[in-house]
């Protein structure tokens, strides 16, 4: 399973390294979203710094939708999906590999957005490790759920419109928890509920990773 996962993740990341779609389209879109939020909030910097945690996570969620759609579309032509299914790779490995590739891209993207938040919104990072841990946990959850919904919508003609509708409400806990942890990490000092939110993220990750490992095979058959 782990070997298969590494193979699939390597394949997706190699495609990204050669096509640079995430780097040249998704990451600029994330920055664009940050700029748009700034326009929406007005030029008041203190307001932006206050809203920075939530705006960061909303931007990440939007970018996740794009990354998932990209991850699905690289396999939509030339019967690549059927090829993968016939290749004898473990479905659980396939799931973990696709999710890992999305997560790796998202982590890079989050680093870019984090710099954007600090520069554009004037947010002050007080507890960097808390930011890093929440990003890591949140990203794993988003990648796992995104991969599941991506596979589910892979065969649909309306996947572009249906995927965000199905995926975003499921990811609501990540947005809530990620925002709360970021609020405490930016303001400085860990409030009493900081670790509670990290635990929630960890539970979300564990649940959807386990679910994905179990059901990814049957999902592929139905797509």
């Amino acid at each position: 399973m782990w070997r298969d996962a590494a193979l699939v993740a390597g394949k997706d990341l190699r495609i990204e390294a050669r096509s640079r779609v995430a780097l040249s389209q998704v990451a600029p879109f994330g920055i664009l979203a940050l700029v748009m939020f700034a326009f929406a909030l007005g030029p008041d910097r203190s307001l932006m710094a206050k809203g920075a945690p939530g705006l960061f996570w909303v931007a990440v969620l939007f970018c996740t939708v794009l990354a998932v759609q990209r991850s699905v579309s690289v396999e939509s032509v030339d019967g690549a999906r059927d090829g993968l299914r016939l290749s004898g790779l473990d479905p659980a490995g396939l799931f973990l590999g696709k999710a890992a590739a999305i997560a790796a891209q998202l982590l890079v993207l989050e680093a870019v957005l984090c710099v954007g938040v600090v520069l554009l919104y004037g947010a002050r990072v007080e507890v960097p490790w808390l930011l890093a841990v929440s990003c890591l946990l949140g990203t794993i959850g988003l990648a796992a759920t995104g991969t599941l919904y991506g596979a589910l919508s892979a065969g649909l003609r309306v996947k572009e419109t249906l995927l965000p509708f199905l995926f975003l409400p499921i990811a609501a806990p990540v947005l809530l928890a990620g925002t709360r942890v970021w609020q405490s990490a930016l303001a400085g000092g860990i409030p009493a509920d900081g670790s509670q939110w990290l635990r929630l993220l960890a539970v979300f990750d564990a649940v959807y990773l386990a679910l994905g490992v179990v059901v990814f095979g049957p999902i592929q058959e139905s797509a």
Partner: protein
Amino acid sequence: MSPNQSVHPPPAQSARVRTAVRVIGITAAVATACTVWLGLWVTPPDVTQGNLVRLVYIHPGVAWVALYLAFGLAAVASLLYLWPRTRGLFWDRLAAAAVEVGVVFNVCTLISGSIWGKPTWGVWWAWDARLTSTAVLLVLFLGYLALRRVPAEPEVRAKRCAFVALFAAVDIPIVHFSVLWWKTLHQGATVLNPDLSPTIHGSMAWTLLLGFVALTLVFVWMLLVRYRIGVLEDWLGTGELDVALRERQAEGAPLDEDQAA
């Protein structure tokens, strides 16, 4: 009369089931009428909330149906569909019917809650834990219905929808806890509190209980009717295909005769 009735008749519904649906429907209507009568005329107004308290006979009952009964049933039915030993379109149609009726009840929950919230909290909508998780649940339900509208083979559609219901069902407790920690304003559970002893008394408690029974019956009746519509929809779908196939075959038939001659 649709043309495919000549191809094959609609799947029959036994007389016993038809009678049961009718009895449940009539009982639900009577129970609802009794609840309205008791709630609006017999029970006294509340000391602090006045006539507003009468919403208590509707709002928790509707919420119980929407949040627990409908979604719980949809989750269980979807799981039973995915379980290979119990796989059958019965569970898929049941889940779909539960979700669709659940959406109606969910919207009613939000509307009746808003009507109650405006005079008591001073706002139509508050970002309270229960309101927020109910709204998220509604969006998840709507996503399920949107996926259901995507044309596909019944088995493929059933499987997809069952997975979406399963993912949503797993998400609900997480959403619930996250918004609970996020913020809360709603009063604690009145009837389903931990020791299951209702904190209201007398005619109000009985009316409240009757309201729960009435709304549950309304839900069951709507569920059964919607299930039957689902069966007929599938029949119509396959019937149309049969008609189309026959038409194509009929177009081809004279050609064969010419060739034979």
